[in-house]
């Protein structure tokens, strides 16, 4: 099974989970995460990010989102994150899919699926991969709103989420 995919096309969650389940007879658990484009992302970002708190609060529905990436580096960065997870936990199979291009609210952006012998490793590795993906993999989101386009600011909460996996 291909480990990492960066693609414009959508993916089928059921197909991916079925493939993870079938890939290794020693797998006793499959954990997965699906990220979606949220329609109210901009309004939520303004409320949640200190960096934009000085801007006036205005509800601005996101009508679409475009994901840009660094072809050539993205795939390697994702593979490095998967390798770090495999070093840390006993994993059987890992699958990461990240979409690029223009996406509409409700569309799937990202899939992370992990199989392991027991559930603890699969749950933890799935969350670890997402936390590192959000802070290390070279993707950038630009939101379209009725008021124009806007690049999404990085969130300090994402940095903190990734840092909690590091030793004190």
């Amino acid at each position, binding site marked *: 099974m291909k480990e990492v995919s960066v693609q414009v096309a959508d993916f089928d969650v059921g197909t991916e989970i079925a493939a993870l389940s079938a890939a290794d007879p020693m797998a006793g658990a499959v954990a997965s995460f699906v*990220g979606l484009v949220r329609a109210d992302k901009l309004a939520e970002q303004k409320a949640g990010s200190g960096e934009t708190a000085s801007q006036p609060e205005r509800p601005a529905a996101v009508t679409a989102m475009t*994901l*840009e*990436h*660094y072809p*050539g*580096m993205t795939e*390697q*960065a994702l593979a490095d994150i998967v390798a770090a997870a495999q070093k840390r936990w006993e994993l059987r199979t890992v699958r990461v899919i*990240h979409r690029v291009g223009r996406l509409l609210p409700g569309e799937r*952006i*990202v899939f992370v699926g992990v199989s392991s012998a027991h559930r603890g490793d699969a749950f933890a590795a799935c969350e670890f991969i*997402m936390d590192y*993906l*959000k*802070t*290390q*993999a*070279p*993707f*950038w*989101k*630009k939101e379209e709103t009725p008021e124009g386009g806007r*690049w*999404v*600011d*990085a*969130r300090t909460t*994402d940095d903190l989420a990734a840092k909690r996996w590091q030793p004190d």
Partner: protein
Amino acid sequence: MNLKILYFASISEAIGITAENFAPPPEVTTVGGLRDALARQHPALLKTKNLRAAVNRKVCGMDADIADGDEIAFFPPVTGG
């Protein structure tokens, strides 16, 4: 020294290009020095908060060394997922 420079997301939008070839002055030996040299043409590089860089597709600090033929990318903090 000849370098391939790439710009992404808000940086490339502010500068108006996504890539260029650049031969820095001989005293430039680090990513940070390169950024300062490029900023004479592209002031947006110095205005970007938390500018990030990669040398040959690996994220690095502004103190990283550069060498002939390197591919060097400048971009804002990532926001995928």
